[in-house]
């Protein structure tokens, strides 16, 4: 069995637990609040499949046959939504506490785990401080941000954070989060519809803005990863973005190539992908972007998680291509051992 690196495993850590890593007076503020009351809500979200074992599943799996992957990148559920919080101060406090918790509690006790710093993207100074202070901690392999379409962080002051990551060769992940109660999702009256639309919409919006604002030329050595929206949205975005750019290049004066060419430089988590989907359409997406740009991501233990079988059942990929997606692409990206 080939190396398995799960680039998107969700872990649970409570705000109360993170409070232990906060400075006063924020620590008291958090501890005095009703549990859960400080967090933005996630209306309609199905319960996670945290009880994978109880359901008889083997979980994400690894090359040695255990229920765990060889390595996994940990994403904290509660932190993902902090960018929706009205208080930037609280978001920054949580981001800092999360970094301390990773460095002092989680990573030292989970040798197969790796993690990304959470960038409180609305606070550039804090983002830079986090990268400076924790960017070299063992097990920290990058940083991630959420809710980018709403924030559009392409202003001059944002460059410092990205440059700090670029200088350390730390990738930047974009993890989608959506709030059903926020436009444009309020037009949907089922969670299924909001879910189907929101993640590709979120990532497509951000990717379009990111590329057209010239970020691939401004921060050329910053590896970016788009998570959680499946892969087929890439076809649509590549073709529409190229069409628009060819007609209005003055709106993207920093670009030197078609937008789709820049898309092929970035990385994409595979989740959710399903061999039962139209194989021709899936194959066209891998052909368009390149197999080397995809990394297996389970999104476990969320309700819509994928196992490595989701990749192994893509019959149009040969064994070497499957192995690359399951492990070696991520090993190169995150500088992990190429063998389990």
């Amino acid at each position, binding site marked *: 069995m080939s190396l398995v690196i799960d680039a998107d495993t969700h872990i649970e850590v409570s705000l109360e637990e993170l409070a232990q890593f906060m400075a006063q007076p924020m620590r008291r503020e958090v501890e005095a609040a009703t549990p859960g009351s400080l967090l933005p809500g996630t209306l309609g979200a199905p319960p996670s499949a945290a009880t994978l074992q109880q359901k008889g599943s083997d979980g994400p799996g690894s090359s040695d046959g255990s229920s765990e992957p060889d390595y996994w990148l940990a994403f904290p559920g509660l932190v993902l939504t902090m960018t929706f919080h009205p208080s930037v101060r609280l978001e920054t406090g949580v981001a800092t506490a999360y970094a301390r918790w990773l460095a002092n509690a989680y990573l030292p006790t989970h040798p197969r785990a790796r993690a990304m710093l959470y960038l409180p993207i609305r606070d550039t100074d804090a983002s830079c401080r986090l990268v400076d202070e924790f960017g070299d901690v063992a097990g920290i392999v990058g940083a991630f941000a959420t809710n980018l379409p709403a924030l559009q962080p392409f202003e*001059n002051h944002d*460059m*410092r954070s*990205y*440059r700090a990551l670029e200088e350390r060769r730390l990738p930047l992940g974009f993890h989608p989060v959506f709030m059903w109660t926020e436009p444009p999702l309020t037009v949907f009256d089922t969670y299924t519809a909001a879910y189907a639309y929101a993640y590709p919409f979120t990532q497509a919006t951000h990717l379009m803005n990111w590329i057209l604002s*010239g970020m691939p030329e*401004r*921060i050329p050595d910053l590896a970016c990863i788009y998570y959680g929206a499946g892969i087929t949205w890439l076809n649509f975005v590549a073709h529409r973005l190229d069409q628009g*750019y*060819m*007609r*209005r*290049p*003055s709106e993207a*004066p*920093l*670009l030197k190539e*078609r937008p789709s060419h820049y898309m092929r430089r970035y990385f994409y988590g595979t989740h959710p992908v399903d061999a039962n989907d139209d194989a021709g359409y899936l194959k066209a997406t891998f052909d368009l972007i390149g197999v080397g740009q995809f990394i297996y991501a389970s999104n476990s233990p969320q309700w819509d998680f994928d196992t490595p079988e989701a990749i192994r059942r893509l019959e149009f990929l040969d064994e070497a291509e499957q192995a690359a997606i399951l492990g070696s692409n991520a090993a190169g990206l995150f500088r992990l051992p190429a063998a389990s």
Partner: protein
Amino acid sequence: MDWRAVCRCDDVTAEAVTVVEVDGVEVGLVRVGGTITAFENICPHQAGPVCDGEVMGPVEVLLDSDRRMLDERFAAHRRILICPWHGYSFDVATGECITDRKIHLRRWKVREDDGVVYVTVPGTRAAHRGQEGSNAT
């Protein structure tokens, strides 16, 4: 090589394309530095009248060492021709599409002599082989 006189040199400027007709084929002339370039008036995108478009500097952005945007302006060192149909933009010095080098205008040989502009007659493709455009995408 069969050259045809098409206009006076003074008729060709750097600010706009001068379109002339030679044996039923429209050719656009534009001055680039000390010379004149000539392109067939057919956009390789969807056959629009590309030479009827504006000539201007492309937008360029100045970045500092930290990749911050300092200024946005029309570039002075380069001129582009923008097709009026869909906005495909071509470097007037080379005919290359500025967003995809595989696409370029069909270029005609041109020379100036005693105040008169001459181009090769359309149809004698061998005469200007190597300078022809392509519809490749």
